[in-house]
């Protein structure tokens, strides 16, 4: 009984803190501007199914994709067992579903154990890739102490949690042989290898170990769920909405600014009789996170800092400061800071300047390599263009050569300094 009450309190406590974080994150995302969704929803669902659910883009790099798939499948399927944990915890039952599922139950348990082992081994391999093999994209400039610690924490926690499941099942099987009160699960393949470790324990210690492992696993899972909301690991949820909201237009298309269209039309005398009253144009481009779209901000929370974008970025590859991953990390950090400020943006800081510098955004070739590389369809280029728009239109602070280019287009209708009357001279040249 006491266990049930404690469990209920623990569950409620974690639920409260997780719900609070979800509320804060969604407020953070809502700092962004609402932008209309274009294109049909069937294409959007297709992206969710293929790219988020089916991990299509992960499979461009096969080995990490397979290992990641184990962890992903493990996460989805082992969480079914967490559902049983919660029922058991609240109802004071033990292996609640076993009687209902009959002979399927041991099969399921064996599948879960297989996944637990697969997850465990994958995490070990990932730790080696990060820390021993030192895959370069996990060590580039923006991968400072916290992002590196975050990644390792997640992997270690997953290993420990999987180990707890196996320990629980091993001791549980020993208890089944000694006490008829324990629901028979039949032999569980992977955890049976752990049984010799606990074989010599007396029944009291065995119960203690089994209970400890049970509590450790469920509290671990709940704690992990809360931690995830602070971590890059949030992609496990955000990947789904992010692929849904990702733009469907060709990658080369930069989105239009209707505010500018209105002004340009009136300048050219093309303005149709205005049907809507002129709205306050606000800021052109983006200086801070509230100037970006909600899709941009959501993308920042979907980023798991894998660095595939940065490892494909021509500017980054040749030693420039620009890193598309950093653009996303900075955007998220700034939103988190604003959340911490209680939603206030006037703290004397801004995304452009305090987080992202002009040197970074100026180095972008808009080649879309980062967009193509992202396994969850994040678009760092969209943010870069918005920041450039602010610099060009609000600050007139573009690089001097760009300002001359602008001037050339304005006066000669070409980005170079050639007279527009000479534009057709090529046809007069001798072949």
């Amino acid at each position, binding site marked *: 009984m006491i266990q049930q009450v404690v469990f209920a309190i623990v569950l409620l406590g974690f639920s409260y803190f997780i719900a609070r974080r979800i509320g804060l994150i969604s407020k953070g995302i809502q700092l962004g501007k609402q932008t209309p969704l274009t294109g049909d929803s069937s294409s959007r669902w297709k992206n969710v199914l293929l790219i988020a659910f089916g991990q299509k883009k992960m499979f461009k790099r096969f080995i990490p994709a397979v290992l990641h798939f184990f962890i992903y499948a493990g996460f989805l399927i082992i969480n079914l067992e967490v559902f049983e944990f919660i029922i058991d915890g609240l109802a004071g039952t033990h292996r609640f579903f076993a009687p209902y599922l009959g002979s399927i139950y041991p099969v399921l348990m064996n599948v879960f154990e297989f996944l637990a082992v697969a997850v465990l081994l994958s995490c070990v391999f990932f730790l080696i890739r990060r820390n021993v093999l030192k895959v370069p994209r996990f060590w580039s400039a923006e991968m400072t102490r916290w992002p590196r610690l975050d990644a390792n924490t997640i992997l270690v926690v997953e290993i420990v949690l999987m180990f707890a499941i196996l320990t629980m099942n091993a001791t549980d099987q020993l208890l089944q042989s000694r006490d008829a009160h324990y629901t028979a699960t039949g032999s569980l393949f992977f955890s049976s290898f752990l049984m010799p470790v606990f074989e010599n324990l007396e029944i009291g210690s065995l119960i203690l170990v089994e209970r400890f492992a049970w509590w450790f696993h469920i509290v671990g899972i709940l704690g992990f769920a809360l931690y995830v909301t602070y971590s890059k690991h949030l992609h496990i949820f955000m990947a789904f909405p992010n692929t849904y909201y990702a733009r469907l237009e060709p990658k080369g298309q*930069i989105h239009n600014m209707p505010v500018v269209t209105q002004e*340009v*039309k009136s300048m050219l005398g093309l303005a149709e009789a205005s049907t809507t009253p002129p709205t306050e144009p606000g800021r052109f481009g983006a200086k801070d996170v509230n100037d970006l779209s909600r899709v941009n901000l959501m993308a920042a929370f979907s980023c798991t800092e894998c660095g595939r974008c940065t490892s494909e970025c*021509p*500017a980054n590859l*040749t030693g420039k400061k620009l890193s598309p991953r950093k653009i996303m990390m900075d955007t998220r950090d700034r939103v988190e800071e604003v959340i911490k400020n209680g939603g206030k943006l006037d703290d004397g800081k801004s995304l452009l300047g305090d987080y992202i510098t002009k040197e970074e955004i*100026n180095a972008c070739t808009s080649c879309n390599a980062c967009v193509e590389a992202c396994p969850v369809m994040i678009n760092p280029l969209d943010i870069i263009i918005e920041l450039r728009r602010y610099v060009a239109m609000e600050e007139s602070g573009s690089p001097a050569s760009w300002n001359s280019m602008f001037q050339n287009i304005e006066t000669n209708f*070409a980005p170079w300094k*050639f007279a527009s009357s000479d534009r057709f001279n*090529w046809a007069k040249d001798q072949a």
Partner: protein
Amino acid sequence: MNVPTLAELTAKGESPEILFWVGCAGSFDDRYKRVTKAFVKIMHALEIKFGVLGTEESCTGDPARRAGNEFLFQMQAMSNIQVLNGYGVKKIVTACPHCFNTLKNEYPELGGNYEVIHHATFLQQLINDGKIKLKDGHAFKGKKITFHDSCYLGRANNIYEAPREVLEALDADLVEMKRCRTTGLCCGAGGAQMFKDAEKGKKEINTERTEEALATGATTVAVACPFCMTMMTDGVKSKEKEAEVKVKDLAELIAEANGL
């Protein structure tokens, strides 16, 4: 070179099926003017009726938009659309992927709706339709050629195969660079980089890409974009390989192979 403008054609009461959008590089850049002429020669040889805008053409606004100057981009776009719609243009062919992308993807929202085709696709269609027939024993037969994907053709618009099919028609030995198609490395000039110096770094992007192209052992680096043309040509020069390795546009290869 006899190239009719839409103004002349309209005065004669004609309206050509195709507008050839030459672009700023195609009009002013000495190297790319040769591509423009090669393309015109192919059109003439096939007796395809087309017109150009001549001095009425103007920058699409691509570099302005990518550098953040949305006002300037839209000013350019709207005045171009006025001209294009004024002539009732329906179909545009261009040899510049940046013009192609802007005209095709970004003008519709501002009132400019045209069928826009990049010359790689246009040439591929002519080859597939049997209109371009390549003579035997031309200079590129069996020669190693590598194709450098332009970002604005490839990733931006998913056109990867058309330029390769054009090269295959040459019966050349097409070799791919390590990074190609969806992972093709930018030449370094997109996003208005063409019009300023690169930021501080340890290497120029076009050097990186040129090294990759040279590593294939190809004697011809085929490109389909004026900016890529400049960057790759400069890259090859900086490696002092300009005697052995030529950077050429698809239209030039087809024109040369046909002795045009």
